[in-house]
Structures are given as C-alpha cells and as structure tokens.
C-alpha cells in the first residue's frame, strides 16, 4: 500500500513541480468563471424552474473543460515516462503492473477533482445570495459532484489508455481527445433521434453523457448511469493494463 501511495504522490508531484499543473488549473478556473457568469446572468435575479446545477451543465463550459482538459491531464502519465526512459526503471522496480496503472489513474483523478474545487466555491456564493434551497439544494450539489467525479473516472481512464499507447505526449492528448469527443458526440445523436426506437437511437440514448449528467444535476442518482460510468472506467483500465503488460509478450 505504501508503494501505491508513493506512486500516487509521485504522479501528483509531477503536476506541481513544473508549471503544467498550475496552467491547467488557471485555464479551468477561467472556464468555470465564465460558466458561472453565464449561469448568474441566466438567473438574472429571477427564480428558475430548474436547479442551478442543471443550468451549469447545459452551458457548454462544463463539457469544454471535460473534453479539452481531461486529455491534457492524462497525456503525460505513460507517454512521458516512455519518452524519457524512466518507464524502464519504474517497471523493473518491484512494482506490479496494476499498481502502476491504478496509481497513474488515481493521480490523474485526484488532480481532476482538485480542478473542480472552485466550482464548489461558486456554488456556495450562489447559495449565500439566493438563500433558497429550492434553487440550489444540498442534494443536487452532492449528486452533481458525484456525477463530475464519475464522468472524470471515465475520461481519466480513457486518457491513461491513450497515453499508454504512445511515447509522444501530443499524440496521447489528441487520441485521448478524439476518443472523448467521439463518446460525447455519439450521445448527441439522441437529440436527433427523438423518440425513435431503432437500435442506433437506443444506443445513442444509452451512451449520452449529457443525459446521464442531467439526472445527477437534478439530484437523482441514476444507478444505470453509475454502472455505465464505472463499467466503462473498468474497461479502459483493463485495456491500459493490457497495453502495459503487452511489453512482456510483444
């Protein structure tokens, strides 16, 4: 366990030893700020029929952060170690493949979680001024945080997988972005599909991240969505492990 902790700490320290982590945080802070302004002007002093958390998800800032920033967080995880060669000393230390994969995933996820702390501050500000629990109840806030974390799990595991495939960080970022965007836009078909019931529309509805997040933002924990996120995360971690392991049977 202490080995795992050392690995996670190393992952996190890599973000903060250089400017990388701070630049990402600054960019996200900017986007959250913009989203917050849009939400505030949307409220415009009037009561809304839907919770504020839901309004935030319907702005594109949330998705912009997820799609753009997630691959940047994960791009260095494996690719940089491979490029610099430290991968070799890491993988010949008495450390298991799963420990390496999970620690890289955990490091990225913790950093991702840190990114959303300013949003919490924004919510507290809104709550303080609005004072109406109907607008920003504790329930929707908690379930929204859970939703953010779950979608983060999925995107971090996907990014780790992309990074494990290459030794070039730019390639890792672009392929991670492509996978994330593909998943996101597949879900978009559900809007065009309407209430058609052919298999494509059903699939689109099932993988629609926006639909899944909407239920979280309304304060509902949709078990189907939880299973959807966790199973895909497990799948990508499994694939990452296979890639890491592949050096031993290539």
């Amino acid at each position, binding site marked *: 366990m*202490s*080995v795992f902790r*050392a*690995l996670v700490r*190393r992952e996190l*320290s*890599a973000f903060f*030893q*250089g400017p990388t982590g701070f630049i990402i945080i600054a960019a996200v802070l900017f986007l959250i700020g913009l989203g917050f302004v849009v939400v505030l002007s949307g409220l415009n002093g009037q009561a809304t029929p839907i919770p504020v958390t839901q309004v935030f998800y319907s702005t594109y800032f949330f998705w912009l952060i997820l799609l753009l920033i997630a691959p940047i967080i994960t791009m260095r995880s494996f690719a940089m170690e491979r490029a*610099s*060669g*430290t*991968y*070799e*000393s*890491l*993988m*010949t*230390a*008495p*450390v*298991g493949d799963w420990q390496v994969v999970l620690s890289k995933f955990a490091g990225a996820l913790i950093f991702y979680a840190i990114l959303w702390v300013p949003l919490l501050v924004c919510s507290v500000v809104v709550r303080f001024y609005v004072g109406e629990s109907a607008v920003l109840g504790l329930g929707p806030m908690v379930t929204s945080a859970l939703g953010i974390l779950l979608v983060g799990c999925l995107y971090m595991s996907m990014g780790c997988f992309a990074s494990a495939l290459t030794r070039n960080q730019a390639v890792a970022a672009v392929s991670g972005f492509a996978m994330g965007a593909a998943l996101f836009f597949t879900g978009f078909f559900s809007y065009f599909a309407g209430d058609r019931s052919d298999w494509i529309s059903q699939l689109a509805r099932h993988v629609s991240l926006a639909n899944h997040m909407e239920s979280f933002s309304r304060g509902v924990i949709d078990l189907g969505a939880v299973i959807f996120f966790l199973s895909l995360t497990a799948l990508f971690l499994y694939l990452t492990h296979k890639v890491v392991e592949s*050096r*031993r*049977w*290539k």
Partner: protein
Amino acid sequence: MIEVQNLTKRYGQHVALDGVSFSVGCGEVVGFLGPNGAGKSTTMRILTTFMAATSGSVRVGGDCVFENPMRVRERIGYMPENNPLPTDLRAGDYLKFRAQLKRLANGDSANRIAEVMEQCGVADVAGRFIGQLSRGYRQRVGLADALLAKPELIVLDEPTAGLDPNQVRSVRRLIRELAGSHTVLISSHILSEIEMTCDRVVILHEGRLLASGALDALMAKANAAVVAEVRASLTDTIEWAAKLALGQAECAEQPGGYVRCRFADAKSADTREKIFASANEHGWSLRELSRQAPSLEDLFVSLTRGKDGGK
C-alpha cells in the same frame, strides 16, 4: 545467480538475440562485451524482467524472469541504458521515492539513502534538481538507485558512457568495491573498460554468443600486433618484412627517415626478439619495438574466425 539458456529475442523480422546461453555465479563481476547492436541491452532488459524473451529460459537466483518477475525484481538493482531519471525531482527526493518502491523500511531508508549517497558521491547535490545536475552526477544518482536496496544482483548498462576520465575512474573503483558482496553485470563496448573491472566476460556479436570466460584466456587467442620502427628505405623494409614471414605487414614512411612497420598477425608467440635480431643484422637502427594488445576488433576477428572455420 544468473542462468540463461537458449535465449532468443525477435523484433518482427529482426533477430536481436539468437540462442544465447551463459551463466553467472554469485559474487562474480561479469562484463557484457559487444559492439553497439550486439544485443547487450536486450539481454539486460530480459534479465531485469522489463521485456519478455521470444524463447529460451532465464533464471535469476533460481526464479524464472517470466513466471516470477516480482521475486526477480526484488533481487536486482538496475541502471538502464542512458540512465533515465525524472528531471523534475531533487536527487534526494528521487532516491526516497525509489526506496519506497523498493519497500525499504521507513526507519532504515533514511540511513540507507545517506549511505549510498555517500558511497556514490552525490551527498552534496541531494537538494538539487536532477535536471540541473551534470552528466557525471546523474550517472552516480542512477548508480546510487541501483545500490539502494542492497540487491544481490546489480545490472549496469553502460555505466561509464559519457563520463569524463576522472568520473570513469571513480565509477570503476565503485564497481570494484561491489565485487564479492554483490554479483555485478556490466555492459560496455569498450574493451579496456571491462578489462579493468571484470573477472569474466561474455562476448556478444550480432545477437550471438561469441565467447565467455576469463578475459586473459580469450585475449591470448587474439593476435597481438607488433610494431617496429626502423631507419631504412621503404622498399628495403617491405622486402625485409616479407622475408621475416611474420604474416601480413603494413609499412609506412615516417618523418626522419624511419619506416613504421606493423605486423598484424603476430601469433601468440612473441616475435619481438626475432625482429630485433633481424634489424640488427641489417645494421638498421630501431627506435621502437612494441607489442600492441589486441583491440576489441582484433578479438572479434579472431573469435569469428574460430567459429566460422576460417571465413
């Protein structure tokens, strides 16, 4: 300590290692010798469980590297080729991180880190970022990491590459100190390097094992060249060299009326006396007569010749 049998590694069509077998006993210092691309690093990567072999078996301390990689990793201290290190960590922090990965008990680890830093001469740069260290210091940080867990087997891939002569000497001294208490495997493409540090060599060439054994015994098989510089005309010297019948000779004029004559095929018997006597007979003055130790190339030539039946 190490048992390698019929080790073969293919990268697609390219055969990097072809049926290599050798063994290394406990406490031995063994040199891995071969030109670039001979398969030294590949062998080391397989030994240290980083890569798997295409076929063949490798055991380190009785454990198979493929079936029991974790047991093997606990036994080895490895410094990969080019000594890759994270540049964003301080030297001391890096060693602390490595000590945690190698499961050094927390209480002992601080002492042990201080000990290896002292041993490798990096104590004074512990607080500096690895990215800002000179190549010599980095190399020693890598060495310190390899020694950290007091491994039974230390594997160093080109430990002196890119160091200046003073640093090379201190690394050599360190390796000699390790002999006896550790089994050490070092790779190099420089013959003199291995000569000074190792008891035994394993010679690889194009993925095949050329020879393994004590270096002296191997060198005796190689032909040492003898060089003589005589004061005579070039044509006379060429004629003289041919008459001496000491094998192929290259003659070249030198300033000052001397001719330098290199007898490449001087067999293991020393021919210097014969050359001296002959030059004396001609009344030529002789200003140099020396036997040149065989180079790695000479050794390869003689070894490949032995193997392929005079090709």
